[in-house]
């Protein structure tokens, strides 16, 4: 499932199907130092990985490259067999719709209700509300927000926001789920429950990458771990 860096295997691309492939990727913000250096790996369809490393190691930067909020300074990134560097801007939404993201700071839209926030990925796909209303309500109940459907994010607790952010990321059944510290604001019980949701999604075919500090979570899931240290990536497990 995981391929370590420095794999100059000529036939590699054709033999192993991949959802995301990084080859010698480097990234810097503006004229600053490189926050990611020579990062190479690939994620296969249906895989589950953790992304760990100390604060400031570049976890969020790596995720930003994967949800197309940043372009790499160098190297090659392919997602769903498309080269991200040469992808026209107009085609980015198609890729983004296949990726669900749980942002570290949630990034819910404050003036919309929890229900509207969670239904947003379906709304922007142009689907009629009748076609998804029941599904969204069911998902809301599942993450324990059934009673908070009409509440707006500023009135939600940290844990509730986190669950809303997760619900929004998974509602459109993405091919790839990226989660940045998804259990940072919830109690261990809810953390386990959310992990079960991720594993369940993974079983249904979604590739999952969870960036976390929570070692208990990593041990529980027994999934391979991508470790970022000083902008360089190694693999464990």
């Amino acid at each position, binding site marked *: 499932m995981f391929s370590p860096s420095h794999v100059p295997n000529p036939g590699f691309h054709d033999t192993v199907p991949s959802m995301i492939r990084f080859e010698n990727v480097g990234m810097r913000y503006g004229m600053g130092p490189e926050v990611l250096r020579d990062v190479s790996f690939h994620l296969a369809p249906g895989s589950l990985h953790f992304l760990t490393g100390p604060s400031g190691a570049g976890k969020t930067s790596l995720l930003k490259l994967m949800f197309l909020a940043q372009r790499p300074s160098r190297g090659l990134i392919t997602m769903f067999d498309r080269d991200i560097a040469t992808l026209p801007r107009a085609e*980015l939404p198609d890729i983004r719709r296949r990726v669900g993201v749980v942002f570290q700071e949630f990034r819910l839209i404050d003036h919309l209700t929890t229900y509207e926030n969670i239904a947003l990925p379906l709304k922007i796909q142009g689907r009629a509300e009748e076609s998804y209303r029941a599904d969204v309500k069911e998902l809301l109940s599942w993450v324990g927000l059934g009673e908070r459907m009409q509440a707006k994010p500023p009135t939600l607790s940290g844990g509730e926001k986190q669950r809303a952010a997760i619900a929004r990321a998974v509602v459109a059944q993405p091919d790839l789920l990226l989660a940045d510290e998804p259990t940072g604001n919830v109690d261990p019980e809810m953390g386990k429950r959310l992990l079960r949701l991720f594993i369940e999604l993974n079983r249904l075919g979604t590739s999952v990458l969870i960036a976390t500090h929570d070692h208990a979570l990593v041990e529980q899931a027994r999934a391979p771990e991508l470790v970022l240290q000083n902008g360089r990536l190694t693999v464990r497990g």
Partner: protein
Amino acid sequence: MAEERSEKREDAGEAESRSLLRLLVETKSVMPAAGATGLPLVLVIAAMCFLASLALGAALSVGGATADWTRDLSGALTVEVKPARDKNIDTQVETAIKVLTGAEGVLSVHALTVADTQALLEPWLGKGNVTEDLPLPRLIDVRIDARAPPDIAALAKRLSDAVPGAELDTHRQWQAELVRAAHAAEWLAYAVLAVVAATTIAIVTFATRAGLSANREVVEVLHLIGARDRFVAAEIQRHFLHLGLRGGAIGLALSVAAFLALGWQGNAASMFLVPMSGLRLQYYPALVAVPLVAALVAVVTARLTVIRTLHRML
């Protein structure tokens, strides 16, 4: 709640009025409607529509009046018979009338009496100040068929041959100057309209940019969850459609009130050389176009601004 309310209305079978209402009452948008571009912008658009309606009304009135004058004057000629020492002016006038009546294309000939002529001078000289022995030219009002006018040059020649000192005034010079002045006024009004439109575009562009920048976080999140530029643009232009229509409706109402007040004031009011007793009824429908055009301008401007701004984002 808004959804429930609109559903109830649908049940009541008032779909038409509901859709009209929807245009004026904003439905919930993904982009926050309030903030920098709420009520103040409605008022600015209202003011712009008010000015645009006034300018349009003035342009239409002046244009209409010019057309009327041209029509009236091109159907009329005036013959001026100057008094001569050795000739009886009444005989001269009669001769002139004979020449004119026989001419082709002439509909009617009416000579002004001495009293009529004196009455014409009264405003300048005062009543009773015109003495009997003041040699006054006599005027003959000639109505011609504007569609098949007589040969003016030939008629003038025949007239001056028959009656020395008779002059044919076609009003052409006066008419040309009047029409030129009126056209200038008309174009001035259209220029005001253009400036108002350009200002509105600038304001909407500014407001759209301000709105986008205030909602930058929202726009970014929308992009990251896969929204296309046109989804974001649609959300924002819907906001501006409502602002434009609401502002436009207020501006239109104010301008209609202004024109009605002008009418109520009577002929005392005048605008661009045209005595105006309000706006003619046939021009009111044109004013209705103003808020619609304003809304269209706001929507198109907002859309173009959004698309252009978003293109700079990843």
